[in-house]
Each structure stands twice: as C-alpha cells, then as structure tokens.
C-alpha cells in the first residue's frame, strides 16, 4: 500500500473507469437492464415469516397449478434469523377480468343501461368464483354493482387467507405465518415514478449548484459530479446484474449514494487545491489513505445492513443497503482512479505546485 502510484505515469489509470463505464452503460441500457419494481408498475407483494423453511420451487409450482398469476416470483430465505418467503405478482387473471367487467358495469350504470350494468356485475362476480361465493345478487342494478365491487375486495381477502392456509398445510407450519402485504395500483405506481423523476432532477440540479459554489473552478467541480454519476452508474449496473429492481427505496438510496460518495471527492479536491505541503502526487496519496478508511467503514456498515436485512426480509433496508454498498465500491474507482488523476493533471497544468 505504500507504493505511491500517482508518482508514476497516472494518466493510463483513467482507462479503468472508462472501460467500466462502458460496461456499466451496456448492462444498464442494453442487457439485462434495471428492472422496474412493483412499487412503480403496480402489483402485489406478500412477505411471510414462518417457523419452518419453505421450498420456493415447490410453492411456486403449487401456486401456478392453482392460480393464474402474472409475473409470479417466489423467493425463500432460511437462515439463523428464521425463514421467510417473498411472493410477488403483477396481477391475477381472474382479478383483472373481474375488475374490467366491474368498470364496464359502472359505465353502463352511468349511462342508465341498467340491464347491462347488472349483467356485467354478475359476470364480474362469476369471474371470481374461485375466491368468493355470492348467494344472492340484488335485483337492483346499482346494488348489484356494489355487490360486485364488494366481491372484488372479498376475493382479495380470500386469496390472502387461501395462501396462508396453503402455506400452513403444505409445509406443516405450526404457527400462523407473520405477514406483510403490499398492494400498489398501477396508477399509484405511475405517480411514484413521476414523483421520482422530479425528485431526481431537483437533487441533481441542487448538488451541481452546491459543488460549484464550494469549489468555484470548472474542471474540479465537473470531476466531482462526473465521479458521482459514475457511482450511480455502477450501482445501477449491479442492480441490473443481480436483478434488484428500481423501487421506492432504491431511488432515494441512489440519491443518498451521490451525497455519500461525494464526501471523498470533496476531501480529495480540498487537499489538492487548498494545501501547499508536499507534491500533488504525495497529497493525493495521503488523501487516498484517508478516503479509503472513510469508504471502508461505510462499506463495512452497509455490508452488515445488507446481510441482516436480506436474512430478515427488511426489504426497505435491503434495497437501500445494496445500492449504497455497490455504489461505494464504484466510488473507490471513481475517486482514486478517475477524480485523482484528473485533478493531478489539472494541478500540473495550472503549475500551482
């Protein structure tokens, strides 16, 4: 660690981040791309914590045989912190059908086509016969539509109860599973996404302004922002590789990554531009010692968060930790192999040695 590679020809170092950036862009934009989570697209997620391990493949087979889920994903984890299963699907064929029939019924009711409204309501209820039984459908059209709307809600409840029962029976559970249910409508998901874009845009603008205010020199400021962008790219590339979706938790984590990773860049830039002791190469090497300590404490903390939250299915913490962990790995490269060489170059050009 004591060989100061900045004293040798440091310019070729820049090739490493450039190559990684190209790979990163390919992973994010071309293949396999970052998936959109159900937070943003709409869907249902159930998390079960159980007293016995659950075989995900077996459960998935069982579920596919019984129900017609769209985009079903089942993941199981067993470890010292207990057993957990995450079940995600974008929709269920019967529910979709019932919902669209229900909205047709509502439309017919508005147009005062009572007979059609009642018929569509009945069809909607019948589409759900796997989940809910309605003995008597009211003769009044608007009451029939209300009954159909209730049936949709009741069907969701029964699906949850059926899944609970299926888990208990198939895997011989002794205790009632502890559960979390998250259901997001498609419109809400779209709202979240628009919201996220606004937030990201504002953040980026504010950060750029702040960096320029503090350093007031174009190239060093640009280098800092470029380094942050590189970190986000690396985090996104790992998300694409590990199919970690873009979600309500991972988007704020990406913003936080920017704020977090800039710490080391700021420290480096301050020491390079505002200090006069030693050569620039020495200064950047000293800065690297400090910076690596900073990043490694953070990496250690996020690794601990990542591991525990994965085992215990604390999804919010997991998605935040994974983005920060991989993003900070990227930060080691962007700060010391990209920002540092650029600054050395800049300082030498300015001849302020």
């Amino acid at each position, binding site marked *: 660690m004591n060989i100061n590679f900045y004293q040798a020809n440091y310019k070729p170092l820049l090739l490493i981040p450039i190559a990684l950036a190209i790979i990163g862009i390919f992973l994010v934009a071309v293949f396999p791309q970052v998936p959109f989570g159900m*937070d943003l697209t709409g869907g249902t997620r159930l998390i079960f914590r159980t007293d016995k391990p659950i075989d995900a493949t077996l459960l998935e087979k069982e579920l596919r045989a019984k129900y017609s889920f769209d985009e079903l994903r089942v993941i199981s984890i067993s470890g010292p912190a207990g057993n957990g299963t995450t079940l995600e699907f974008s929709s269920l064929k019967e529910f979709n059908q019932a919902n669209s029939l229900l909205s047709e019924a509502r439309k017919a009711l508005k147009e005062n086509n009572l007979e059609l409204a009642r018929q569509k309501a009945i069809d909607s209820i019948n589409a759900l016969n796997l989940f809910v039984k309605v003995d008597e459908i009211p003769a009044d059209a608007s009451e029939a539509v*209300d009954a159909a709307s209730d049936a949709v*809600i009741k069907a969701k*409840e029964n699906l*949850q*109860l059926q899944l609970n029962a299926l888990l208990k029976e198939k895997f011989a559970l002794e205790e009632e599973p*502890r*559960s*979390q249910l*998250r259901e997001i*409508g498609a*419109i*809400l998901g779209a*709202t*979240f996404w628009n*919201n996220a874009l606004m*937030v990201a845009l*504002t*953040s980026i603008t*504010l*950060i750029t*302004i*702040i*960096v320029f205010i503090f350093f007031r020199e174009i190239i060093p400021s640009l280098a800092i922002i470029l380094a942050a962008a590189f970190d986000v790219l690396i985090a996104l590339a790992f998300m694409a590789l590990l199919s970690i979706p873009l979600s*309500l*938790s991972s988007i*704020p984590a990406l*913003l*936080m990554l*920017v*704020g*977090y990773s*800039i*710490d080391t860049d*700021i*420290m480096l830039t*301050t020491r390079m531009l*505002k200090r*006069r*002791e030693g050569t620039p190469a020495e200064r950047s090497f*000293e800065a690297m*010692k*400090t910076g690596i*300590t*900073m990043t490694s*404490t*953070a990496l*250690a*903390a*996020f*690794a*601990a*968060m990542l591991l*525990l*939250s994965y085992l*215990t299915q*604390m999804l*919010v*913490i997991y998605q*935040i930790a994974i983005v920060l962990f991989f993003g900070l790995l990227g930060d080691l490269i962007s700060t010391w192999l990209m920002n540092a060489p650029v600054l050395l170059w800049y300082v030498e050009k300015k001849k302020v040695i």
Partner: protein
Amino acid sequence: MKDLMKSWKVILMFSLLALSIALIAFNGLRLGIDFNGGTLFEVHLERAASTEQEMVDVTSTISQRLDWTGLKDTKVSSFGNEFALIEIAETNPEQVALLESLIKKQGKFEAMIDSNVMFTGAEIISIIKDPAKGYGLRGTEKNISWVLPFALSNEASQRFKELTFHKCTLLSYNPETGSDYECEKTFFFIDRPLTSVLVMPDYLFEEEKQMPVDPRRQSSNTISAEELLKNASVPFIIFDKNLSGEQLIELKELSENHFTAIILPETTESIKESLKAMNFKLKEFKKADDEPWLWTATGLKSIIFLTESVANMKAKTLSEAESFPELIITGGANDAKDAKERLQQLTIILESGSLPIAVESVSRESISPALGKEFFFYASITGLLALIVVALVLFIRYRFLKLVIPIMFTAIAEVILVLGLASLINWSLDLAAVAGIIAAVGTGVNDQIVIIDELSHKRKEEVTGSLVQRGKRAFFIVIAAASTLVAALAPLIFFGFGLGKLVGFAITTIAGVFVGVLITRPAFNEIAQKIIEK
C-alpha cells in the same frame, strides 16, 4: 481532560444528549406500522381536488365513516390534492376488506318517523351549503347555534308533510309567549339493517333501556330502547344466558325473510351455532365506549326533533298544511368549535357519507403486529452490528483505542440525538428511518476520519498551520460534504416522495447530518485536538 470539560462545545453536546435521553424516556418514540403492525390505505381520487376545502371534506368524510364502524385510532390525512392516506391498527384480512369496501362505497341514508321512512339520501336534492341561505353558524360565542338547510324532492316533501302533520302536542299556552309544544323525534340512519334481526343479551338491553338523545353530549332528553328499535323497524330478541324454546321458534319464523343476525362479538358459541343452523349470517358489532350498542347496531346516527312549524300545528287539516321543499335543521352547541363539528357531522350524514370526489383506486400495505415486532428487533440489531463493524474497521486502521473510542462515542451520541429529535417532533419511526439513521451516522464517522487525518497529518514532518487552522480546513470538507448530502435528499421531503413513505429516510438522514455538523462534530474536533496534542 479538565479544560475539555470547560469547552462550551463539549458542554453543549453533553447537555443536549441528556435532554434527548430524557425526551426518549418520558415522551417516548412513536413507531410506524413497520414496527407496530397495522394497515395503510392509499386512496387515489378520481380527480384532483380543486380547493383545499374540498380535500378537507374528503378526509373528514372518510374519518367520519370510519368512526361509524366504531374503529378507534384511525389517522386520515391528505397527500397533495389527489390522495388520501388512512392508517389504522387493524391487520386482520377480514376487517381490512370490510374497511376497504367502506372506503369505496357510500352508505344509505334514511330519515324515519314512527317506523316510516320520511325521506332517503337519494331524495335529498341538495344540501344548501350557501351561507347566504343560512348554512353555517349563528349567534355569538355564548349562545351559538348551527343551521343546515337542504332541499327535498317533490315526492319526498309531500310524504314528509303527511308523516309529520300534527306531530306535536301542546304542553302549555301562555297568551304572551304563545303555545309551548313538545314535538316528535325523527331518526337519522345510515345503512339501517334490513332483513336483519337483533339478538342481544338482557343485561345489555337493561343497560340501554333509556339513552340520551345525543350519546356524545350531555342532555336531559332521553329515549327508550323500544322506541329506538321501533323506529329502526328491526325485530329483536333479548335472551337471558341462552335462547329459550319460544325464542328459537320466533327466530325460525323470522328466518323466512330475515337473513342476518346482528350480535355482540362475545355472544356464546352455542347461540352462534343455533343462529347459523337457522341459516342466519352473523354480523358482529362491538360495543363502543361513547355510543350505545343499539345505535351502532341499527346504524342510528342522529335524533332530530320536529318543530311546530314543520308539523303544521297552525293548519287545521292536512289539506291546509304547507309542504316544505326546503327544510332546515338547527341545533345548539357549547361553543363555536362544537357547533362547527355538529354541523359538519350532520352534513356528512345527510350526504350518506358520500365523498365529494369518487375513489378511483385503493392501494394498501398491511404488516401483522408479530412481524412488526420482529422487524423492530432486527432493525435494532442491524444498527448495533453496523456500529460494531465500523469500530472494527477503525481499530484495524488506527490501532489506537484512544481514537476509536471517541469516534464510536460520537456516533452513538448522534443516534441518541436524532432519536431525541424524533421524539420531540413526534416523528414516527419506520424501517426507512432506521436506514437513514445508520447512513447519517456513517457520514458522521467519515467526517471524524477527515478531522483526525487532517489534524494528525504529517505530524513528524514540518507543520504548516496550527492545529486550529487545520481544524478549520477539515471543517470546510465537513460542511461541503454535509451540504451535498442535504441537497441530494431534501427534494425527497419537498415532493413528499412515495406519498411520504420515504420522507422518514430523508428526514432522519438530514437531521443526523445537522446534528453532526452543529453539535457533535465541533465537540469531537475539540476532543480530537487534545488527543492528537498528546
């Protein structure tokens, strides 16, 4: 060490630390549904509310409707002009489904007199919310009343005239002040149970034999249970411990055209079984603290007295009687706030609890209390583990316990200060907030590393600048880093990211950063200077 204790920065940190601990101990920490369990509904409205008042109407109508179910501890808030958020402690799928349908559907309003329907919600043409036409509060603070005018359809106002005609009795006559009448009561129901039968224990019936006409307020006027039940026109069975043979026969007959039995949840299994055997569907209502069970069970919302003028006391015969297309309900109140509440409640009742804007869709999140407990436990462990691994890494790097201990002490102090702040502003903690705290502490540790390295830099070689100057340089880095982090996360708060779900993450992180920059970092700087000097 002695002169360190004299530094105001260090004193400030310790006193705030003590204050935070006291706050957490006495004021406590509020936990969100992630840790307590519960359900959050995100209600998306069909269109954006055009005024602030309209959005307030949406949330208060939802609160009122939830209130009608006897549900406690509900929190209804609005988000922007298109979303309403409802937080409840309930997680049982059955109850949650019931609530969801309640949110989506409006109730059925009926005004009854003598077991006859006077008018229904559908027959109310409009509620005249125009203050010029009388809607609102009247009088002075001491003697305040409220007025609610509304218009009925022709058919309904005709029926109203017939049903209310001469429904007052003369109490006394005074040539100076005129006649003094006592008038009949009318009963306002939402979702009055039809084709249902009430099956209640005798002790409860005894308890509610006489009820105040307004259960939520002091009043000398009372009504009897019989009168209420007659007006609701619901058949009822009162049992003593168990159903008698006669009652079973009566129920059997009722089951011909009544399909639901309304009972208390604590009704014995044997009674439940016999009701089920007669093909009754069971509907359970808990007894609320602030309302007689009979009110909840029959859906009675309000009792309104007729006045002699609407009862046409001056007209001699029905044919001479006047019909009123527009009616006015008025009432007294204790003060302006009370009057406003009563007016608003009654308005919502007459509107059958219908929302001014229809509900487009409902999304939700439910966490069972057992899972919440588990999350709380593991989130705490995660925080602790993060602290331990950071301490380890620092020890490996510096191999100097005297430096690692103050860093870790500061980190823990920051956690306590942020939690103290959360307790002060009553911010509810969730998983995202825990992630935010850990991240904020992480930046804190980063800054302390910068301070140490900056201070101890080239200790062996020539020193440029005093310790104080270098401390200042370290602070430039600390402030710049903190500003960028705040800039990155503040927009999450502005835009209420994820309908406020991830705002906790941003708030705790930013709070942590501020606590760090303003309180703990200056104190740490002093402490570190002393350690480095040695």
